[in-house]
């Protein structure tokens, strides 16, 4: 009886084991063979869920599969492979002349009609596409000319066309095809994505290798994968990993993220509602230490990455003595323990951030240290869902990261964060001067005048401090020898660009 039992158990186990190894092995065979014939393997933390442009436009563009009509280059300028000339006819009408050189990945021409079709489809099926200027109608005049009509006037049509949702695509028998340098060979959602070069992208397609994007949920695992040579590119390095890999003599590049690290202050309630306290905290923060701890980046000079022409020109300084004066003005004095207090209550700042962006908790820890040394108490929280905290108002200072100019243009973010009723204006900040400047910006064509308006607004913000500028960060990417020349840019917006592996 017992022998039979043991036998039975062994058989069951052998079977499950065999099933485990063979069953799962079989699924991924293609991946294994791909890496032997030279796919570039990229480690990242997410991939597109599907290839539908309505759901996944952002990811598809980031993976080098789809393209917007306009995209940013490494200097933050908007460039287009599709449009050679964009002209405003009247308030609501624009005329675009096309380059006539772009082809879809199946070889068909991407003419004015194809562009108009896909843009109109997105306008109807993706409400997000009509946020900026209402519903936009595209009409093909002939093969090379496109007329664009908006519901509301906008001075920045190129930015509108650069919004992530406006990608160029064509539907063929229920499949979506795009114009980017790579096309999808196999998508295993949340696991891996296999890409092959798009032969019709340009004349360098045959020099490109296949690319595999592999998802890692743990940076420690990704680091091991990189060190063992299993992946060629590792995105999302935390500062300590970047440092460790640099020490080992591996290629780690710091590149401009476009994302900005900044703080939302609670101007509505709590100690930070007092402008002097905000200013004091702003003076206590040591941004040089922040940059040092993050192993890269610059001290912020505004709310935009510094390569943009509309970036700010404010100068942040650390001055604890000045902060002390401001706190005295606000009615705080140091008690016997060296802690600022008012009416017997110690000054305590509640700082909150989230774990998804690993750099932010580091910044918050530095801030906590600096506040403590200056004599201000602090309470810190790292939450899972930061928007709950922001909307609930249970914070004094929230550390936040966002790409503030994803369409190469400043007014979208400034309106969100500063205008009355803006969706990121959580504390209900309102300033007439800023509102005027924003309104003016909405009518001004891109150029120096518009850039100056952006700079003016950023200056006022730095005086009033509804937001505290912190770091214009650089992110780190680790590269194997084979791709050591690769230059990613614009944060995670274009992880795979046309220059990969060339």
């Amino acid at each position: 009886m017992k022998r039979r039992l043991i036998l039975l158990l062994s058989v069951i186990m052998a079977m499950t084991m065999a099933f485990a190894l063979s069953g799962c092995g079989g699924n991924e065979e293609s991946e294994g063979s791909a890496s032997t014939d030279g796919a570039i393997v990229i480690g990242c933390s997410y991939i597109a869920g599907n290839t539908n442009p309505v759901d996944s436009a952002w990811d598809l563009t980031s993976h080098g599969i789809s393209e917007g009509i306009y995209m940013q280059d490494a200097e933050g300028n908007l460039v287009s492979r599709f449009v050679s000339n964009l002209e405003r006819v009247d308030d609501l009408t624009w005329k675009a002349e096309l380059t006539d050189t772009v082809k879809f990945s199946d070889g068909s021409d991407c003419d004015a009609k194809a562009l108009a079709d896909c843009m109109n489809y997105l306008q109807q099926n993706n409400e997000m596409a009509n946020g900026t200027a209402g519903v936009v109608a595209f009409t093909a005049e002939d093969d090379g000319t496109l007329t664009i009509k908006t519901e509301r006037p906008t001075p920045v049509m190129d930015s509108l066309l650069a919004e992530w949702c406006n990608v160029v695509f064509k539907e063929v028998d229920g499949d979506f095809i795009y114009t980017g340098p790579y096309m999808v060979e196999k998508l295993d959602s949340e696991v891996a994505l296999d890409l092959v070069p798009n032969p019709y992208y340009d004349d360098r397609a045959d020099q490109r290798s296949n690319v595999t994007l592999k998802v890692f949920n743990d940076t420690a695992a990704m680091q091991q994968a990189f060190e063992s040579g299993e992946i060629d590119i590792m995105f999302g390095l935390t500062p300590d990993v970047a440092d460790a890999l640099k020490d080992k003599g591996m290629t780690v590049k710091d590149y401009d993220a476009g994302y900005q690290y900044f703080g939302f202050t609670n101007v509505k309630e709590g100690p930070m509602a007092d402008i002097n306290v905000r200013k004091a905290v702003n003076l206590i923060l040591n941004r040089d230490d922040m940059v040092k701890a993050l192993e890269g980046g610059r001290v912020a000079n505004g709310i935009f990455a510094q390569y943009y022409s509309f970036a700010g020109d404010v100068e942040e300084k650390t001055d604890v003595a000045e902060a002390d004066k401001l706190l005295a003005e606000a009615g705080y004095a140091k008690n016997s323990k060296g802690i600022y207090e008012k009416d017997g209550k110690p000054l305590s700042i509640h700082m909150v951030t989230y774990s998804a962006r690993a750099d932010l908790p580091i910044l918050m820890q530095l801030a906590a240290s600096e506040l403590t040394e200056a004599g201000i108490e602090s309470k810190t929280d790292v939450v899972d869902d930061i928007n709950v905290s922001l909307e609930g108002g249970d914070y004094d200072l929230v550390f936040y990261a966002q790409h503030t100019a994803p369409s190469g243009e400043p007014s979208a973010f400034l309106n969100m964060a500063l205008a009355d009723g803006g969706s990121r204006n959580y504390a209900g900040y309102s300033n007439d001067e800023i509102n005027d400047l924003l309104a003016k910006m909405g009518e001004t064509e891109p150029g120096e005048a518009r850039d100056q308006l952006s700079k003016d607004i950023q200056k006022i913000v730095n005086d009033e401090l509804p937001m505290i500028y912190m770091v214009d960060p650089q992110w780190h990417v680790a590269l194997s020898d084979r791709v050591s020349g690769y230059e990613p840019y614009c944060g995670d917006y274009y992880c795979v660009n046309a220059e990969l592996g060339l």
Partner: protein
Amino acid sequence: MKNVILFLAKWVIIFIVTSVLIFAAVRMMPSTPVDKWLDAYHLPHTEENIEYVESKMGLNEPLPLQYVNWIGNFIKGDWGVSLVSGENIRERFMAKMPYSFSIGITGILLGAFAAFFLGYRAALRRNGLCDRLTTSMTIFCQSIPMFILSILIINAFGVRLGIASFFTGDGRYSLLAAILLTALYSVGGLSRVVRSAFREEMSKSYVKFMVSRGFSPKTVLWKHAYKPPLASLVSAIITRFAGVFGGSTVLEFAFAIPGLSTMLVSAMDSRDYSILQTYILVVVIWMFFVHLILNLFLRMLGARRSKA
């Protein structure tokens, strides 16, 4: 017969209660999938946007209707689609299940197998080598986290020796490592269960009787007293099997194995109601089968178990 009906009735009730609870629980979470979706694309939470995404996800219908639709379709075998990516949930489950199943089931069974022998040896010689070994293994699993051990394993075999590729290729090494780690972390606890069950048998009169009749003490224990310890082991395995679905997050993350836990955590991140709800129901069904099979097994052993 009465027992069978009771058993089935209990699980039907568990199924219904769980489905209502989880349906309510996911909807009570402070941020909705709509918020998460908008955040993912840096979009403002205006009323228009929220309405649009809600209707896109089908969350604008009255709650009772949503519940009835969901549960009705689930029983019919249509598990719905992901709110976020629109993928068929059942297909996705089926694609991820082999990974989690092989890690969980193989690992635990392997561990249990080893635990039975170790537990037997440990009971045989109190404070002997096996006794101390199993004790130290329980302490070990409670002090050294799996994620540290997995880094060391990858570093040793993948980076230093370069003989195994854990992340590319067919994934056999990562799976093997995950299975062995699961086994290692179950051996300690399970072997202590076996040991104490054996010791209990040792004090029983039938064992004394047989030994006094001249049978060797070892043989008596191994050949005649093995059923109750085996039953205890099986009962202890039941709870561990609950973790097969979604309990191996740490291992799946550490070895980048695309199993159910990974899927679940990302569904939680995006608050994908339909995946979360369905997942819990699938776990209930899984546990039903685990209990069913193990109860039958226990009955086969002739042991009485306190559970219905």
